[in-house]
């Protein structure tokens, strides 16, 4: 047994134990399973928000993006700088309304505001659709690491890791997700910073010295357009579109309901940038890979560790990088599984289909849904030769953008009413799915509809917003009593 085996399996055992203990706490009802009885304190909130957002994709994809596209990779920092700010503004209100109305999901809050089961159910269904490819890439990351550590088939490794995740999510609910996220968040921060400073030091004598060499040998990778190349317009579109959907991802949004107080939601938005800085060392590793001629794919992080110049410390570093990648994959994957299972039951079955289930039945159904979703994601991973997960991600990122007009109009605009929300969401989700399908099956026709190659999510979002505003202005507002329930008086 190597060090890597010890670290990885020790870590898996630890999170499993945490999940089991987490499951023994709390009331056990829906509000507990989904929103932790609305009692999360500052440490939990900090790591839940930060670790959920930073996925295996961020860890593996950031250095890869530096190698393939140079400074275009900074767009991740750029959208993070403002992407989470909306949570500061709407988060406190969402937390208060959630407690007052008993809501535990985003779709439930929005569906309630517009008194529409259709909106509630459609948002839930679209969310689950968006989660699948996002979950599959987390599994892919976990499978890659386990394969590197144990030599197993990637699918087997992913199954083992996500078996552990499923157990702690099913038993521990959101508390299981939160507690393990603290461990995973700390692990990621320490390993990534350690590695990001150590690699430039070991290879070039320091970060500054490394950039001296990049300036001398590959200055093109430090400014746009870079080796991609990325045009100014493309870069701007990447940043803006990412900002639009960022605060709307349901698995992050619904964590507003878990906070102990409204003020605490704002505090997590304030502290979020400290988590963002953790991408900086990944950029450093990316630039080291540029100088070393590393591969421009998601294996580049592990490739860097095999550099002979790093000497005998390789195996130890490898063990901890494997640990960090697993932590990144699991801290995002657990939130997706937990939110996906909860949303499938609460939003699609109870909300959309109107099934009147008891609290106990709902919680039980959520647990079953989590297992089903996990198995389904594994199935997609195994067949991802035929289904391109990267293509599906394009659709996934277009979905949360469709929630933005409804959430903001619902919280801040008195005139927004039921027909406007139904029309806006239908047009938005319909356009996103329609354009995506068209792009896949008939690229020439798609090009006629989208001559400038704009992002699907942005086009659908604009149509959504336009429809919502037009219909709202053409129809009467909802009654005063209803609006005052949502603090719109």
């Amino acid at each position, binding site marked *: 047994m190597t060090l890597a085996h010890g670290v990885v399996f020790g870590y898996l055992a630890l999170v499993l134990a945490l999940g089991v203990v987490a499951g023994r706490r709390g009331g056990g009802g829906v509000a507990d399973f989904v929103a932790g009885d609305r009692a999360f304190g500052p440490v939990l909130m900090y790591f839940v928000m930060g670790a959920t957002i930073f996925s295996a994709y961020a860890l593996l994809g950031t250095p890869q993006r530096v190698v393939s596209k140079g400074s275009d990779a900074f767009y991740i920092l750029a959208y*993070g*700088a*403002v992407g989470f700010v909306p949570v*500061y503004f709407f988060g*406190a209100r969402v937390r208060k309304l959630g407690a007052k109305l008993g809501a535990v999901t985003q779709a439930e809050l929005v569906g309630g505001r517009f008194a529409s089961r259709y909106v509630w159910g459609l948002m839930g269904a679209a969310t689950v659709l968006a989660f699948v490819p996002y979950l599959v890439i987390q599994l892919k990351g976990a499978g890659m690491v386990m394969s590197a550590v144990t030599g197993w088939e990637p699918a087997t490794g992913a199954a083992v890791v996500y078996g552990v995740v499923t157990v702690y999510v099913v038993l521990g609910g959101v508390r299981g997700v939160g507690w393990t996220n603290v461990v995973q968040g700390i692990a990621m921060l320490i390993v990534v910073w350690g590695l990001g400073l150590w690699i430039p030091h070991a290879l070039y004598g320091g970060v500054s010295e490394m950039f001296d060499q990049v300036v001398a040998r590959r*200055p093109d990778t430090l*400014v746009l357009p870079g080796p991609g190349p990325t045009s100014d317009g493309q870069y701007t579109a990447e940043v803006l579109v990412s900002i639009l959907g960022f605060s709307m991802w349901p698995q992050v949004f619904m964590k507003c309901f878990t906070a102990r107080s409204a003020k605490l939601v704002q*505090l997590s938005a*304030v502290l979020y940038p400290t988590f963002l800085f953790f991408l900086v060392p990944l950029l450093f590793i990316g630039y080291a890979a540029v100088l070393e001629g590393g591969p421009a794919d998601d294996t580049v992080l592990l490739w860097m560790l095999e550099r002979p110049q790093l000497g005998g410390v390789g195996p130890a570093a490898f063990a901890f990088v494997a640990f960090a990648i697993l932590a990144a994959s699991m801290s995002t994957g657990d939130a997706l599984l937990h939110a996906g299972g909860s949303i499938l039951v609460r939003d699609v079955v109870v909300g959309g289909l109107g099934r009147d289930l008891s609290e106990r039945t709902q919680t039980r159904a959520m647990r079953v849904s989590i297992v089903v979703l996990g198995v389904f994601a594994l199935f997609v991973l195994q067949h991802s030769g035929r289904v391109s997960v990267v293509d599906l991600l394009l659709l996934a990122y277009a979905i949360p953008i469709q929630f933005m007009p409804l959430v903001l109009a619902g919280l801040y605009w008195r005139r927004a009413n039921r027909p406007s929300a139904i029309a806006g969401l239908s047009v938005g989700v319909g356009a996103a799915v329609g354009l995506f399908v068209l792009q896949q099956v008939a690229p020439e026709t798609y090009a006629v509809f989208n001559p400038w190659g704009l992002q699907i999510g942005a086009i659908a979002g604009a149509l959504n917003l336009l429809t919502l505003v037009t219909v709202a202005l053409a129809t009467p507002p909802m009654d005063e009593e209803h609006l005052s329930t949502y603090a719109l008086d």
Partner: protein
Amino acid sequence: MRERLAIVYFVASTVLLIAPVYTSVANRIEPRVLGLPFSLVYVLAVIAANFVALAWMYRKGIGR
């Protein structure tokens, strides 16, 4: 009122991060700060400024 000003500030900070502002002002290697290229330092500076702005708003209770 203070909430409106805050929103204006964050819209302005977004403008700083995209074309034409980012691409004309910040898309350069020099001046380097602590060895990092200016194109990166600039984005980090905006993040730091937004962090300070949010922390100040939180202390003043803006947006509650």
